[in-house]
């Protein structure tokens, strides 16, 4: 399975002036971003900076108060409150991997992967099953197809979470700190899979604390601070030679935690 061929030079994802407040707190202040097809954007920043909210605005799990989000030719202008149907149209273009996996505990591993394609997309059962089993095979979990999520390790659950996202055949993959809830020894398998996906040409937005991963895999890094994209550019520049003092401090702290 591979993402759609790059047929256009327009950005696949474009975010313009997205703002969001929770009560008195301005969580996002007029954020702009562009991601081309096949590109990986790593979003970094301290907890509470707004980076997760930004990611959730991309598929309508949070509804921005203002601004515009477009994935390919599906765009929502948030100056008016969007209808549920509009949000779903935007959401159909992407798939998200959650920090805490959020697998469906009452469904088997296989059913977790096939639920969307079968129930929402109404694709043929045989084809969906075959694809799901091939995905499981690829990450070495084919033998666990009939297991329930609680019978899997965290790293296995997160890989199933990624497969669930892939099975939807999205154009854009969204990752919300996919390794933050994992024990350190389980992080590697998940990052390896994500690296492979990037190499295959999937377009990805990854909120992460894994700076090494960002440096190796991302074409762009955005540093979010107090609801703004404070600094944005190639990983080499943002991570090695940050222009902003706050970026420097953040990167420094993560690289030398002791």
């Amino acid at each position, binding site marked *: 399975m591979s993402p759609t061929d790059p047929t256009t030079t327009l950005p696949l994802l474009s975010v313009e002036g997205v703002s969001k407040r929770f009560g008195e707190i301005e969580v996002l202040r007029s954020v702009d971003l562009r991601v081309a097809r096949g590109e990986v954007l790593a979003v970094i920043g301290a907890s509470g900076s707004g980076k997760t909210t930004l990611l959730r605005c991309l598929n309508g*799990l949070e509804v921005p108060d203002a601004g515009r989000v477009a994935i390919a030719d599906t765009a929502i202008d948030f100056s008016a409150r969007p209808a549920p149907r509009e949000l779903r149209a935007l959401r159909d273009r992407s798939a998200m991997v*959650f920090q*805490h996996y*959020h697998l469906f505990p009452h469904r088997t591993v296989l059913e977790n992967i096939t*639920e969307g394609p079968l129930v*929402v997309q109404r694709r043929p059962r045989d084809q969906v099953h075959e694809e799901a089993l091939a995905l499981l095979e690829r990450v070495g979990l084919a033998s666990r197809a009939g297991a329930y999520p*609680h019978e899997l390790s965290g790293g296995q659950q997160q890989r199933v979470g990624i497969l669930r996202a892939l099975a*939807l055949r999205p154009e854009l993959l969204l990752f919300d700190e996919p390794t933050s809830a994992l024990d350190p020894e389980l992080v590697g398998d998940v990052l390896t899979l994500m690296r492979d996906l990037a190499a295959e040409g999937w377009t990805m937005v990854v909120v992460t604390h894994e700076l090494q991963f960002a440096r190796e895999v991302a074409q762009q890094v955005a540093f979010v601070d107090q609801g703004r994209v404070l600094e944005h550019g190639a990983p080499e520049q943002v991570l090695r030679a940050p222009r902003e003092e706050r970026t420097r401090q953040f990167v420094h702290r993560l690289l030398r935690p002791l």
Partner: protein
Amino acid sequence: MTEIDWDLVLGSLGPIAGGAIRGTIPLALASFAVGMVLAVAVAMMRLYGNRAAKAAARFFVSVIRGTPLLVQLFVVFYGLPSLGVTIDPWPSAIIAFSLNVGGYAAEVVRAAILSVSKGQWEAAYMIGMSRRTSLLRVILPQASRVAVPPLSNTFISLVKDTSLASLILVTELFREAQQIAAFSQEFMTLYVEAAIAYWVVCLALSSGQSALERRLDQYVAH
């Protein structure tokens, strides 16, 4: 103490079992089914409705829980005819019991839905589900596991409460026992027999609950 009239006991088994099978059990099942639909609807109104829907749902629950079931039954069967609405015993009983179950179970359903983590809604939305599909395929199946024990209580109470239907002329277990008791004047024998019959029905239902819980528990970590 007088001796137990075993012939009477044996002879009354048939009518009492018949009252259970033709009266008590179908009345309880029908009322519970209708009541659960109502309960889910009321719970949804309280959780996700607009201000008016929330207020209406709260009012309904408050009235049902704050008034005796016997009075509700009498209002429907003996009260409504004076407004020109006459309903037969059976439908009257089903209406009153369903409303009662709806009021009590609504709170159980609401709490069970709230016990499912917000992440499950988000995962359902993420894969493209509408709110309705998310509820039916993701949230309610998980909520049902939490709701089964308290709903079993509601159901067992309902089975016993159906004996009140004898007072609005529904032929069910207790009414059969009453009639035989009145005829034979063996009140103790017949009422103890009726009590045992209710107990047997409830025992059977409890084993059904255990089986259901085992089935729903298979995907949950212990």
